């Protein structure tokens, strides 16, 4: 035992130790800073070439022109994003028709009905859906789904079409909807369920009438994330949807409203924003040309749209976390 009357030396820490501590802290901080730098680098990279692009192509033309042909054999290039947006919307909306209802029902099943055993089997299996490489999904769509649909439901379907691609995008995004929605549903306090049962509600009424409304912001946030994922999806559409930027023909009006026949967009090939980027990248990467810059303009569009959606989803999700 030391004699505590002598003043203990509490401040001494060797310079080496302090240097070591500081070095480690600094190194870790530097690594953490790389994540911030990544964001900055993405924005700067996209912006610098996008600005170059918009100095050549007016932004109004980019946003309103309906023709996309960056590398025409002869004649002028046109850079109108509208056809691409329509292609992207086609895929996104169709995929949403698959992923949102299926994902929501899955979430309800997992959170309300499944035994813990079933849950422990189903959840990892669902995760597999998100883990399959997208190029594989694209291949499935091209060589299995399309021929199957062609043989059974839609004989007039073309080899490259939006429908098969969208179905695969939908399946791929199911786990995104189901896992986040399930988290939200599991976060609903049991008191609420008990209250429902106490009033004589059936399990169905409790699930759909109490749990789902109580977790609605979580569900909404999962929808937005899934849609944002579908917008940015690349390889499935590249492989299975073809690469033709088409404007759908606006058909006869139904009740005075212009009408686009869904079969027209779904069964034929089309082009999304991501496909357009990949198509340019297949040819021209050295930089300095307008198509090269156009790629970054498209990338910027994609980045901004997905970023806004993610932030939105975060804000909504934050609300349900606060509620309980």
């Amino acid at each position, binding site marked *: *035992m*030391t004699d*505590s*009357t002598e003043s203990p030396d*509490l*401040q001494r820490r060797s310079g080496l130790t302090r240097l070591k501590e500081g070095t480690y802290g600094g190194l870790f901080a530097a690594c953490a800073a790389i994540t911030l730098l990544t964001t900055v680098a993405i924005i700067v990279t996209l912006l610098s070439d996008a600005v170059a692009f918009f100095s050549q192509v007016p932004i109004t033309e980019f946003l309103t022109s309906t023709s996309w042909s960056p590398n025409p054999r002869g004649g002028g290039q046109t850079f109108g994003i509208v056809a691409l947006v329509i292609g992207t919307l086609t895929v996104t909306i169709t995929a949403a028709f698959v992923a949102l209802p299926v994902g929501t029902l899955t979430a309800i099943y997992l959170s309300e009905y499944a035994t813990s055993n079933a849950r422990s089997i189903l959840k990892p299996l669902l995760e597999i859906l998100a883990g399959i490489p997208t190029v594989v999904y694209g291949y499935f769509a091209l060589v299995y789904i399309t021929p199957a649909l062609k043989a059974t439901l839609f004989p007039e379907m073309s080899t490259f079409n939006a429908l098969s691609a969208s179905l695969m995008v939908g399946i791929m995004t199911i786990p995104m909807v189901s896992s986040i929605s399930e988290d939200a549903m599991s976060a609903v306090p049991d008191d609420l369920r008990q209250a429902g049962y106490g009033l004589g509600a059936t399990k169905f009424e409790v699930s759909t009438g109490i749990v789902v409304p109580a977790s609605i912001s979580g569900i909404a946030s999962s929808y937005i994330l899934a849609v944002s994922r579908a917008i940015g999806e690349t390889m499935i559409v590249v492989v299975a949807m073809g690469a033709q930027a088409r404007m759908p023909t606006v058909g006869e009006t139904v009740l005075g409203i212009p009408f686009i026949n869904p079969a027209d967009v779904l069964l034929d090939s089309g082009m999304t924003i991501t496909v357009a980027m990949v198509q340019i990248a297949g040819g021209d990467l050295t930089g300095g040309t307008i198509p090269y810059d156009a790629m970054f303009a498209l990338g910027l569009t994609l980045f901004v749209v997905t970023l806004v959606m993610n932030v939105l989803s975060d804000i909504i999700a934050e609300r349900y976390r606060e509620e309980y």
Partner: protein
Amino acid sequence: MSNTPSSDTRSSDSLITTDVETGSNDRTAESRATAVATRDLNVYYGDEQAIDDVSMDIPENRVTALIGPSGCGKSTFLRCINRMNDMIEVCRVEGEVEFGGKNVYDADVDPVALRRRIGMVFQKPNPFPKSIRDNVAYGLKIQGFDGDVDERVEESLKGAALWDEVKDQLDSSGLDLSGGQQQRLCIARAIAPDPEVILMDEPTSALDPVAASKIEDLIDDLAEEYTVIIVTHNMQQAARISDRTAVFLTGGRLVEYDDTAKIFEDPEEQRVEDYITGKFG
């Protein structure tokens, strides 16, 4: 194995406690030096005051118990001594904690260096998921101890009354031990670097009575070499093992601080008597 109160009862600076006449003690009768002292210590968690103006002198080589109802600030007080409260961001400390005459909250004090001289044992046994040997040698390792590690491990385990039970399995995991053994392992870990003071935060509350009584015996032995400051919920335990007892009541006020026998037999304060007899708290 209860201790009679210490002969020395230097008055603390607290206004509340009073000097009482000396009793007899089986340890020593001479006056003890002060190991740790606080001066006007105030601790706040955000806006809430956890310790209210506490001044006390804690004698060297004695067991000092801190008792009081939950939320009275006794654990906070304990954690001020080795500055574990620094880890809590909203925690703010005013006043002084003197350790060997130096205020540990001085700007030039390194809390890490401080903790190397003050051991701590926690409520729940928390051995590292390493071998028994590595657990005990942990403090030596981080402090760059250059002596014979194995010898020190053996000494410490003996000091924690655990050696005979584990000497053949030093390489097995500390987590394989029973709860009481784990806690003694944590005590061995705390004493291995030879600290001056050992802080114990309800060290027996997670243990069964048999394991707890072993720890109590051990604490008694530890006081031969170390200054022990122990927070406990259990008044019988405080009465059994401590030489001095400090009673904290709500709001983080030190209500009475005196020889243990005095506190339990004839407290000055009515509130303390009520608390001890179970009328309150």
